């Protein structure tokens, strides 16, 4: 079986979930032949990093039109890679880009598609995938048709990152002539909103606060803790709606979905719409004065205590532990 991994990169930074896709591919089929698709512009540094991972082939499409992400040229370029690689299965990160690109690729190629997968069971030539539905209140198993290409985006942090090996496969360059009609949409600018702090979807640890932080200033105690842990800061909708944090940090049904190794919830009640965005986290810690708060139903560890007392204490404990 040939599995093609979409090695998402932006501005020369590989998406953190890409190396996890190698582990997913090996879990699906131990003797899978792994191919990699790398799209963008001026890709040499990213390509050099990728060459350390166990791929039989790396296909690169390096073109000025691919500098910033746009769905149509990307889907055309990825389709060109597919024609060379002839995979049975394409894996992408379930990131904004992966989730934007995969449906177009499926529509274009007639493939069967599943989004945000967390487990895979091959069954003959078909593939059974498991994915969370109803905001994590249930899981569904989908059977992807045997006689078709299969495309799956994989939920970040479901599989461990593969370790680099001594592999050194050459990059095969593919040339694509883009149809003018697919270049109508312009991506004028990619502007960071993170002002130096990590985004909630990218961090291994997320420190989140709720309405109970009372104002924007008080979030400082969470930022200080996050700095020690190299974590991102998140917030409930109530905290974002009140203006304590920008909406780009909202976690939940109408915010972002996060699946970090560790999610620390400070003064967050655990409304079902908040759980929707974070219940897939590996380990959940809740700090809430109310023992009945629903957040404790999904938490692994709980401290029934005041967040304003706990956050600075935890900061110094972690500082001691991590030697910072």
């Amino acid at each position: 079986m040939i599995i093609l991994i979409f090695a998402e990169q932006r501005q020369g930074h590989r998406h953190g979930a890409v190396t996890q896709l190698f582990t997913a591919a090996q879990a699906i089929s131990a003797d899978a032949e792994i191919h990699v698709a790398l799209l963008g512009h001026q890709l040499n540094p990213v390509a050099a990093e990728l060459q350390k991972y166990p791929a039989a082939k790396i296909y690169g499409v390096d073109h000025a039109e691919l500098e910033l992400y746009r769905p149509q040229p990307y889907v055309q370029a990825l389709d060109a890679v597919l024609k060379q690689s002839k995979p049975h299965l394409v894996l992408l990160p379930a990131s904004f880009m992966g989730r934007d690109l995969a449906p177009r690729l499926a529509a274009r190629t007639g493939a069967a598609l599943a989004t945000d997968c967390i487990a895979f069971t091959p069954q003959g030539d078909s593939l059974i995938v498991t994915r969370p539905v109803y905001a994590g209140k249930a899981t569904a198993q989908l059977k992807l048709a045997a006689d078709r290409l299969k495309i799956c985006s994989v939920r970040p942090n479901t599989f461990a990152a593969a370790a680099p090996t001594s592999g050194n496969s050459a990059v095969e360059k593919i040339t694509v002539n883009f149809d003018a009609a697919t270049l109508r949409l312009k991506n004028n600018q990619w502007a960071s909103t993170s002002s130096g702090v990590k985004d909630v979807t990218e961090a291994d640890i997320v420190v989140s606060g709720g309405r109970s932080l009372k104002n924007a200033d008080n979030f400082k105690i969470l930022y200080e803790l996050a700095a020690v842990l190299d974590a991102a800061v998140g917030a409930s909708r109530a905290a974002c709606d009140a203006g304590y944090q920008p909406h780009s940090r909202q976690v939940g049904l109408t915010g972002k979905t996060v699946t970090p190794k560790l999610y620390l919830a400070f003064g967050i009640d655990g409304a079902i719409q908040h759980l929707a965005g974070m219940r897939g986290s590996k380990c959940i810690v809740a700090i809430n004065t109310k023992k009945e708060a629903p957040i404790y139903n999904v938490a692994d560890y709980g401290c029934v205590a005041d967040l304003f007392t706990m956050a600075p204490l935890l900061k110094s404990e972690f500082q001691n532990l991590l030697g910072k």
Partner: protein
Amino acid sequence: MRILTIVKQVPDSNATIKIAASGTAIETAGLKLVMNPFDEFAVEQAIQLREKGQPVEEIVALTIGDDKAAEILRTALAMGADRALHVCDPTLLSHDEVYLAEILALAIQKQPQPFDLILTGKQAIDMDAGEIGPALAEFLNRPHVGAVVGLEISGKQLKARRRVEGAEEYMEVELPALLTCEKGLCEPRYPSLPNLMKAKKKPLDTLKAADLPGVEKISRRSELVAMQPPAARKGCKFVEGEPAQMAKELVRLLREEAKVV
């Protein structure tokens, strides 16, 4: 400008989800059904474009769904859409979103006039797929911008701002285009009682498979074979003691037991 908004009926986000005895569906008895929240942004955005003086000739709402799904088309009409289309045929229901997108594309192409702007939600909060918007754009061979949080239109020129990991992207395109709507784009209105009454008189057409020649050639690529409750978490371990002791113990547990720091 002619605008199409594509909407789905889903269980309210507060609903408790129980798996039905069949093991492939959820219990629907007593379930509160609403318009998918991201689709409310789509309908609201269309109406606001008209209210803010864009030359909007027509706003149409379209769904594929069972008989009950007509309710959300009435909601869209009450919010301000002009007419609605309901693809309502048991043979066309599926959990394969790419299949549904192909049917939607066919239904759209059968309309007497094309749409300059198609608005969908970012994702439906039942299956959480987020597939139909981009797939539909591909079937219709038109550009799309996903997860739009800001929109400006002047003449045929459209500017959309979209949210991605740690950044925003500023996209620009000449119509026609398709956008998937994300929270932050606008605040959906509640339809007023008089508007709910008026909505009953607006046209709502039902389409069966027979009204969509060619639909029989579209095939399903995937099938839902089982549903389960989520894997149970192991339960919460409460750390006890004075705050300082709690902090120490919690950090120890995270290092030694959970091994996450």
